[in-house]
């Protein structure tokens, strides 16, 4: 057992290192560098930009820059974020919790609601209820993210002003509130971004769950179960359980998204998460921040796939024989 854990750990480190290195190289390949991305060409002549470049070592050979970066990462120091002008560690510390809160919550509710809806549909494929829900889910999925988010924003803050528009807390009064009010304030600011994400997420998981459900009904074990005289309800539960497998795989795939966040939703609701910071970092060629995000993202991916493997074995008894 210990050996298995160790190999898995070793694999994880290997994956993280490869992913981060590839990201580092890709970003350096991309046209432009942090200096060209941030300076206003009219006021800063090329000669001045060359000075900045030399100062921060962006003019050194790629191998030198890579070595320096590797040394930093080994010391768990992710360097200085050029897009935010502060240590990358500070950026992660301030942005990561926000994204984890929003995306974690949205992912959990999407999986729960999606799996439940999909299962309900899967048990009555072709019925009127199934068709209506299917169309609804498709519509939810097909409309672009920014559209849903902006529509919700307009609806609940302008036409029917019951929710705050953007940010995580009230910009003026949050600091003067009592603890209970502060909690309410936070929850109120969370609703709209959470809802935008959950609507789409639910659609994805419901589609996967429904598809898997209706297939499971054709499996031999269903007939066996009915033959054994099990009740409709019991069979349904067993079918659902085995049909959760694709949902779990999908959830594993979505796990890294908890980290990279939903860029549009973060942008529209002014949610200071890591997703929007990463996009800005890519646009501004912030080598340090992008690499750090990929390190975290790849760690999440391996965890996600490990989770999917384990959960798969737990859900489908037939997979456990190995």
């Amino acid at each position, binding site marked *: 057992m210990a050996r298995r854990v160790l190999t898995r750990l070793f*694999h994880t480190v*290997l*994956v993280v290192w*490869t*992913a981060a290195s*590839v*990201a580092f190289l*890709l*970003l350096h*390949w*991309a*046209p432009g560098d942090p200096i060209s991305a941030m300076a206003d060409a009219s006021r800063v002549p090329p000669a001045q930009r060359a000075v900045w470049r030399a100062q921060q070592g962006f003019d050194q050979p790629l191998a030198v820059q890579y070595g320096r970066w590797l040394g930093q990462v080994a010391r768990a120091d992710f360097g200085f974020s050029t897009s935010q002008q502060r240590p990358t560690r500070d950026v992660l510390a301030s942005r990561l919790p926000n994204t984890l809160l929003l995306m974690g919550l949205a992912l959990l509710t999407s999986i729960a609601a999606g799996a439940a809806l999909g299962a309900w549909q899967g048990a009555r494929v072709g019925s009127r209820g199934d068709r209506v829900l299917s*169309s609804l889910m*498709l*519509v939810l*999925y*097909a*409309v*672009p*993210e*920014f*559209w849903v988010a*902006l*529509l919700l924003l*307009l609806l609940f803050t302008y036409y029917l002003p019951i929710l705050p528009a953007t940010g995580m807390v009230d910009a003026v009064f949050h600091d003067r509130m009592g603890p209970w009010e502060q909690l309410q304030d936070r929850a109120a600011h969370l609703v709209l971004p959470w809802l935008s994400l959950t609507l789409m997420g639910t659609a*994805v998981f419901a*589609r*996967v769950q429904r*598809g*898997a459900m*209706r*297939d499971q*009904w*054709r499996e*031999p074990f269903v007939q066996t179960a009915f033959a054994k005289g099990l009740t409709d309800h019991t069979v349904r539960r067993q079918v659902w359980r085995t049909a959760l*497998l*694709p949902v779990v*795989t*999908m959830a594993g*795939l979505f796990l*890294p998204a908890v980290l*990279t966040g939903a860029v549009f939703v973060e942008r529209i609701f002014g949610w200071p998460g890591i997703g929007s910071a*990463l996009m800005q970092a*890519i646009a501004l060629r912030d080598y340090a921040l*992008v690499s750090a*995000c*990929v390190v975290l*993202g*790849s760690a*999440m*991916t*391996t965890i996600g*796939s490990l989770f*999917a493997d384990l959960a*798969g074995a737990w859900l*489908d008894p*037939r*997979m456990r*024989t*190995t």
Partner: protein
Amino acid sequence: MTDRRKRSRGHRAQRWRGPLLLVGLLAAIALGAPWIAPYSPDVPPTYATQLHLPPSAAHPFGTDSFGRDVLSRVIHGSRVSLSLSVAAVSLALLLGTAYGALAGLIGGTVDRLLMRMLDVALAMPRLLLLLAVAAFFPTRLPLTAFILLLGCTGWFEVARLVRGEVQALMHRDFMLAARSLGVPRARQLWRHLLPHLFPILAVTATLNVAGTITLEAGLSFLGLGVQPPTPSWGNIMLDGADALFANWWLTVFPGLAIMLAVLTCHALGDALRDLFAMEQLPA
């Protein structure tokens, strides 16, 4: 549910009618765009007088900020958007299925190696991949190259889903039987696994079509997408995104077009799945 297999052939034909009709409709619109579209998709000579007109009899979908007829642009845009999304998603499905099935089918060390490589790929923000590729294309990207690009960066998730499915299927009786009978791997894949993979692939395809259409628009900001003045559903919608609450028609109609494409894909996937389910799945 169980009585599905008893359905008559006529019934099945009916199931095909809807999707085929939709596909035909979309294909006709895309191919016949220059003849169907009431106006040219380019800036009209009198643009300054027709900016932001709401839907009317003359312009059923309204006009955009250049005075262009949105209906005509949506019709012309179907060419780029449909060919792009169908081709890119098909490519992604092909690559992803091949990779995932291979990993699941062979198993063991090869599987682990392939999966770890996939982890690396999955951890990469797609935007970063595309940005790096953009470096090799200082000028505009031809459509085929763009499709290849989207397909080649879009299959990682498909591969992981397929591999998960294959792994589960490998323990099923029919696969155990096939293996113990010494059926060659290629045949195992083609005759036994693929039909079972269909549902998950159909779902993925449906989900990805919409994503690809909108992704194209998002990428034009990198100089990778379709450049003006050529319309695509994605960039028509992006043009109107700023004015969502003033000029709703700019985003609603291309949005509906995307939805139509997704519905078609969905219906087609269902029909194909039934075809496989009825004729090939071992019970």
